[in-house]
Every structure is written in C-alpha cells, then in structure tokens.
C-alpha cells in the first residue's frame, strides 16, 4: 500500500453496555490502525458512555430503529468521511476481533468486494453453533438457497461479521438495502449487482446473556420475510450498482 487506507470498524449497538468496552479494547489490541464507530441505536443503558470512554466515536440514533438501520448509518458516516474499507461487527463480543486482520487482508488485496466471516467451516456440515432449531433450519435452508442462486458456496448467510470496500458501502447506504433483516437477501443482491463475495472461517463466541435477535416467534417471521425478499430480488431487474471500474486503489 502506498498511502495507508482509512479503515472504519462499525459496531451497531443496542443495550450492549456490559460488553461494548471489552469489544472495543479487543479491537484496539488486534487492529490499532482502525477507527472504531459505535452506532448507539437508542439504547437506554450506558452503551454510549462506555463506548466513548473506551475511545470509540459514537453516533446516537434518536430512538431504537433496529440493527439494519443502525448499520446503514455507519456506512453513511463512512462514505461521508471517506473511509476506504469498513468492517462491521456485533457489540456483544460474539465476533472475535482477532479475525479483523484476516477479513481486511482479503478485501484490501482486491480478491473480493465483500468478505463474510463464517462461523461454519467449509467442510464441516455439523453446524456446531448453538441456536434454536428454527433458526438453525433457517440458516441451513438459506445457506443452500443462497449457494444455489449465486452458484457459490455460502455457509453462513446470517453472519454480521463482514469486511467490505467502498463500492459495497455505497450499495449498503442506498435505498435498495433491506434494513429490517439484512441477511441472505443482501448476499443475493450483492451478487446480482456484480460484487464478488468470499467467505473466511472465523470462530464466533456464543453469548449466553443476550437474547438473540431471532427469538420467540421472530424466526418464523424471519424465514417468511427472507423467502419473500429473495424471490422479489430475483424478480427485479438487475440493478446497475456495479461500479467495479471505479474501484479505489489504496
């Protein structure tokens, strides 16, 4: 790299006061060259204060708007500030900051536009990650559907641990980004827009304290919404979001 690329780590956080400081410290240890941005998604607890004290930049949303919207705010910020590469992570300590480097290397080398940290290794089909059976079925089902549609093996379409470049960020910040459950449908949209996707195996820590985003009856809604979103994505014309020729060279 001739000029150092500007890298931003985006952490959407809702009531992550217990873990956020630890996550930020972990990132500062493993990737000191990155700026850290926490999107406080209207948390009533001390998430924002703790994140700020730990040395992250904090953006406040006026009320709780959901994971996807918080994430998109981060991408809008990153584009505004001219960051070249972004890594999105969860604030609950599920994603190991140790792997940031690996994800970034893959995206900076230009091998792919999106690198997804997958909790399942490519050959192991046992899905060791502990989750409810509906969610597990959902993950496996959508992993297969996604893999078939984009003709590439995707083992973990639900992963929120991703490294992306600026062109993908433009897509994430656009109105075509599905903000309620950005998931397998995003991968298909990315593929249809001509972005290259790659998976890297990472270890995810299971968080016992936290109620999952997919709990209660939500997994059923999630499966329904995802099927609908995927089918509609396939019905739409390919959007002209492929801006590969404008790719930034760091």
């Amino acid at each position, binding site marked *: 790299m001739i000029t150092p690329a500007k890298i931003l780590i985006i952490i959407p956080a809702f009531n992550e006061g217990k873990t956020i400081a630890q996550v930020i410290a972990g990132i500062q240890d493993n990737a000191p060259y990155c700026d850290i941005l926490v*999107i406080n998604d209207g948390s009533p607890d001390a998430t924002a204060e703790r994140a700020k004290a730990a040395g992250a*930049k*904090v*953006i*406040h*949303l*006026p*009320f709780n*708007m959901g994971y996807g*919207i918080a994430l*998109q*705010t981060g991408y*809008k*910020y990153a584009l*505004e500030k001219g960051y070249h590469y972004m890594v999105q992570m969860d604030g609950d300590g599920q994603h190991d900051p140790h792997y940031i480097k690996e994800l970034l290397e893959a995206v900076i080398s230009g091998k792919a536009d999106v690198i997804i940290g997958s909790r399942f290794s490519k050959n192991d089909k046992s899905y060791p990650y502990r989750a409810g059976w509906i969610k597990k079925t959902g993950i496996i089902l959508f992993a297969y559907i996604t893999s078939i549609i984009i003709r590439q093996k995707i083992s973990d379409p639900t992963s929120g641990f991703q490294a992306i470049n600026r062109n993908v960020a433009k897509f994430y910040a656009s*109105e075509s980004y599905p*903000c309620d459950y950005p998931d397998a449908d995003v991968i298909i949209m990315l593929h249809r827009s001509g972005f290259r996707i790659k998976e890297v195996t990472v270890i995810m820590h299971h968080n016992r304290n936290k109620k999952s985003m997919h709990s209660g009856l939500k997994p059923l809604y999630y499966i329904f919404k995802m099927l609908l979103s995927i089918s509609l994505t396939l019905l739409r014309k390919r959007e002209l979001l492929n801006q590969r020729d404008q790719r930034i060279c760091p």
Partner: protein
Amino acid sequence: MPLRQKLFAIIISLFLLVFIIELVRRKKLREEYSWLWLLTGTIILILALWYDMLQWITHLIGASLPTSTLFFLGMVFLILIAIHFSVKVSALNTQVKNLAQENGLLKNRIEELEEENSGNRNEPRRTYSGEKEEKREA
C-alpha cells in the same frame, strides 16, 4: 330497491362527501388522501340514484341481491384505501429512517465542530499566529 333503502344510501353518501370536503377545506385532511374517499362517496351516490346500473353490476358479478353488490363494492374500496395507507406508511417509514440517520450524523458533526471550536478558544494565540502565517503564505 325500496325507497327507504335508497334514501338511506343517498343520505349516507352525501354525508360522507360533505364530511370529506369539509375536512379538506379545514386542512385536516390532505387532498392527496381525500380522492379515494371522494370516489367511494360518489360511486355510492351514483349507484343509489341509478338503480339500473346497480342491477347491471349485480348481474355482472353474479350477486343475487343489489344490496350485496353495494356491500361488496364498499369492501373493495376499504381494501384499496387500506393498501393506499400501507404504501404511504412504508414511504413514511423510509423518510423517518433517513431523518433519524441524518439526525445522528449531524449531531456527531456538531459535536466534532464544538470540540474543534473549544480547542481554539483555549489557545487564542496559536490561532492568531496561524492566521498570520496563512496571510504570509498568500
């Protein structure tokens, strides 16, 4: 159609039309949202006055009673209005989302500017010499 029924339908539709127009006049309802309601009122009125038309539609859709045709059309309009609202709510959702995001980003920008400014106020001399240097360079 019995006279009583006819009168009732006419009164209801007239009341609906006047009510909607009054709401729009007092700016309680935007024109944009009023047209579907006005259309509903007008069609009920037309069908109540023009019995042959109602009978023709009843025959066309295979209903046995003209009253059920009126009910059916009423339902169709309610569904259309509900869909219209869903579309509007979706658009509002997107707008609220964008506003909230913009609000967050602007707040952040203000904080940044305030920090920069307070830094300058504490060190007025440095700012001054900085300006002088800029002039010299120019």
